[in-house]
């Protein structure tokens, strides 16, 4: 089973049905899996903060959701986290494909990536970098359960070590 199939199974195991996403190359197999499977309710959002709002409403109305985004998209949601998710105690499940490292070709991605973990740390949001398929199931399953048990958000950072990185980067890095 691929890393993406395993990840989607972990969402299913925890009743996470709504997936709001802004596309990214690395997320392609996750988004394809979500849209191909009737279990999931996919929401193609136009911005990442919009996706955070939608899963917040869904959670309060009894439907669990996750947001999928890339590193630069995470940089857009600090206010939604600080003024919605955290004060209202929303167990937002965030899935962030990690750009900006290990073979990044886009300088903007490499710079904005520096804001991701410091932002998560400053806001006190639990985050786990997923690097391999062996440890991923335990980390994801237990952390989703912790999020819902404690009304707290959690971020899963999909490292290039897990995903192989951005497929588009390989061609563009040839210099």
């Amino acid at each position, binding site marked *: 089973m691929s890393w993406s199939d395993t990840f989607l199974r972990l969402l299913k195991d925890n009743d996470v049905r*709504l997936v709001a996403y802004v596309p990214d190359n690395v997320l392609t197999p996750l988004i394809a899996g979500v849209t191909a499977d009737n279990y999931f*309710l996919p*929401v*193609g*959002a*136009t*911005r990442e*903060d*919009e*996706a*955070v*709002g*939608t*899963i*917040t*409403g*869904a*959670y*309060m*109305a*009894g*439907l669990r*959701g996750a947001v999928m985004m890339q590193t630069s998209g995470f940089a857009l949601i600090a*206010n*939604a986290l*600080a*003024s*919605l998710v955290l*004060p*209202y*105690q*929303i167990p937002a499940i965030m899935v962030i494909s990690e750009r900006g490292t290990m073979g990044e070709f886009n300088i903007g991605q490499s710079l904005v990536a520096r804001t991701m973990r410091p932002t998560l740390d400053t806001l006190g949001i639990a985050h786990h970098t997923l690097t391999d398929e062996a440890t991923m199931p335990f980390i994801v399953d237990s952390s989703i359960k912790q999020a819902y048990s404690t009304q707290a958000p959690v971020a899963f950072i999909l490292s290039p070590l897990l995903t192989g990185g951005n497929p588009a980067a390989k061609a563009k890095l040839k210099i």
Partner: protein
Amino acid sequence: MSNERASAKLLNRTALTKRLVQKLKAGEAVIGGIGNANFDLFAAGHRPQNFYMLGSMGLACPIALGVALAQPERGVIALEGDGSILMGLGCLATIANLRPRNLTIVVWDNGIYQITGKQQAATAGVTDLVAVARGAGIANSAWVRDEAHFDALLDRRFDDGGPALLAVKIDDMPGQGQTPRDPALIRSRFMKGLGTGRGGALDP
């Protein structure tokens, strides 16, 4: 300026919010956007199915969309200011494509950022939010002509017929209520009102 927008009567948000709340008979969820939209929602009398936003400007419609998707049998209404909705117009495209039948958006348009000092918004100029919504694909979008038109548009079931957007041209009066600034309380009461989570676990 479009004819519809130019001829819309200037109305009052506080009065119309009360009018709207009086029409809610089926436990409809109402998401009050940041600032005056939720102050007037609170002033109209708290209901268990009200959610008050104290931040995250621009996310009333996305939050309402999430509620609508999770509970498709319940009518869901988002109350949002023009400045707020301008902050995230993309959500109108998302909503238009998902077509939630149980979602209604009410936009209070005074053309200003009333709460920050009445600075002009794009809606004071050439931007027509009904035209924007229709362009995004929410065909059922209209300017409210007057009180009677507001009543006519909202005397209906809210669990069907959406997505719909009503834009109301309003005066520059501030909101009248003071929503309790306790987000955890607001969330937990809202969940109790929607019958979800542990909202009622500690009640007798």
